[in-house]
């Protein structure tokens, strides 16, 4: 969580210095979700991430240099500089930038898994705002009909870019899942061990063929949507930041771990910013080797 936190801080800092091209969406405040899931997912599971996916990637791969190189367009980038912040692919991990688009894709990967690799699953991260997309419902319908092992992880941070959920969603996520006969699990905490414990059994049911599961995390986005475009009133942001997990921790152990990750990220920034620009085909060699191994295994 601290790695993700400092990585995102570093990105905002690079933005402020004008060193970042385009846009990027940080997951400040939402770090607990992918970190909790890390222990519940296997490298053989498919993971579909979205536009706010830095935390998802870092929790799965612990590769801040590859991610930063991708975002900055430098040598060693995960997607050779073509994808940027929102379009990463590594083995069975893939992110893409269109809301809801990856749910039916996850259902397809889950269909493959159900036919050929029972026990594995396809996990797809979405936000509360994504529930406005029809693709979500087409996918839920098919996943429920065919009992596909799809784990839908909803990072419900209460706001879609600048639109509060209350202005965009009638009813509830639980109600929508229920309409398809899909199991729904609410997580109201960001305490990682508690989350893992509560999800262990429901995720096991997905693997065992019980059909899809929607896990709704109550979380909060304490940073802007992208760059500096936060239109929320300062008092609301203060309130959110006051309950942010990062504020809750004190003491020498935390201080030491925090300093470690801060300096680790600073070192990554120094390393990556000194690299030459990426060219297509210069994907991180780590990623290419992994992919070749994976393709051989699946040939």
């Amino acid at each position, binding site marked *: 969580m601290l790695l993700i936190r400092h990585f995102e801080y570093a990105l905002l800092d690079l933005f402020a210095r004008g060193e970042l091209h385009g846009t990027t969406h940080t997951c400040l405040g939402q770090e607990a979700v992918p970190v909790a899931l890390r222990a519940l997912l296997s490298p053989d599971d*498919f993971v579909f991430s979205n536009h706010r996916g830095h935390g998802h990637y870092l929790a799965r791969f612990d590769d801040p240099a590859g991610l930063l190189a991708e975002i900055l367009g430098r040598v060693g*980038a*995960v*997607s*050779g*500089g*073509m*994808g940027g912040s929102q*379009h*990463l*692919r590594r083995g069975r991990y*893939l992110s*893409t930038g*269109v809301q809801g*688009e*990856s*749910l*039916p*894709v*996850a*259902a*397809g*990967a*889950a*269909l*493959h*898994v159900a*036919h050929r690799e029972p026990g594995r699953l*396809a996990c797809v991260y979405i936000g509360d705002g994504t529930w406005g997309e*029809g*693709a979500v419902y*087409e*996918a839920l*319908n*098919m996943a429920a*009909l065919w009992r596909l092992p799809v784990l839908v992880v909803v990072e419900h941070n209460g706001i879609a870019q600048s639109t509060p959920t209350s202005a965009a969603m009638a009813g509830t996520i639980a109600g929508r899942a229920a309409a398809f006969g899909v199991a729904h699990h609410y997580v109201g905490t960001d305490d990682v061990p508690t989350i893992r414990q509560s999800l262990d059994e429901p995720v096991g049911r997905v693997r065992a063929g019980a059909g899809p599961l929607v896990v709704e995390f109550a979380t909060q986005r304490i940073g802007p949507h992208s760059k500096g475009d936060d239109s929320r009133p300062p008092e609301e942001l203060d309130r959110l930041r006051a309950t942010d997990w990062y504020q809750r921790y004190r003491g020498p152990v935390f201080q030491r771990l925090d300093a470690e990750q801060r300096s680790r990220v600073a070192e990554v920034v120094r390393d990556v910013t000194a690299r030459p620009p*990426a060219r*297509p*085909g*210069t*994907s991180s060699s780590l990623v*290419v080797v992994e*992919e070749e191994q994976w*393709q051989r295994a*699946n*040939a």
Partner: protein
Amino acid sequence: MAARQRVADHLNAALCAALAADDRLYVLGQDITDPYGGAFKITRGLSTRFPRQVIGTPISEGGTVGLANGLALAGNRAIVEMMFADFVTLAFDQIVNFAAKSVSMYGRRAPMPILVRCPTGGHRGYGPTHSQSLQKHFLGVPDLDVYEISPFHDYGDLLDGALASGVPSVVFEDKVLYTGWRRPPGTADDLFSYHLIGSWPGTAVARIEEAPPDCVLITPGGVAERTLTAMRELFVRYEISCELYVPARLDPMDVEPILPAAARAGQVVVVEDGTSGGTWAADLAHRLHTALWGRLSRPVRVLCAADSVVPSAAHLEREVLVQAESISTAVLEGRS
């Protein structure tokens, strides 16, 4: 191969052979399973023989192509049937933003072997939402191939090649062809012979062997039948000899094999059934003008459907869509 085979039976046999050859190939679509076998019966019998691979889906075009994309990512191949080409707009995001982009946007070539079949075109009285030719909306998309079947091309070869390329594709199939006959190799009819030229998937060239062409006509497969009718009339009534070029891949299209004949004939007409404006035909005409500037004796003509929805009533539909008579008229007008 049977001496005479309906195009629908040819498609069905090709899908059957492809499914039998690869148990990682899926066919997905609405109402495609038995006993119905698809709105045009192209998948009849397949779900009975390959129950795991042939999957009837809900009315969810986008979701279904998404499913195909997920299967492709996981190392499978997938063919999706749109009940009507008109509905492919509902899957536009999955085709253009997911399938096509996934090939290259992750910085290295990644295969996305999916193929979306689209029963296209009018002349059946199905009206504005079941008769369109939407090919133009898929042109010029990086890493997306657009094909159109014809009575001259082998469908099994098309499926195998398109899926093996790893580039996702949209295949248009003129509904009028389904019930018609395949043209046996070499013989378009009693007047015209044909052969394939160019690199895979090839362009069919139909011509009268003894007659050097006065005009070159270029059309996709659905319009090719009407073009042959026009060519027959032009030859019999006016002694105008035409040569017909039918490419199986519309985009990206290899124009090189057409250039010598087009330069020699001087008169070139490109015909398609899509509505005018921003069309395959207009783009091709521009490429021909550029390549042959100074060698053409007249402008390349473009013949498209009218800028109109496709009406339901037969007499109104005829006025909007390209007919054999409009093709022969275009050739005659182009000579005056």
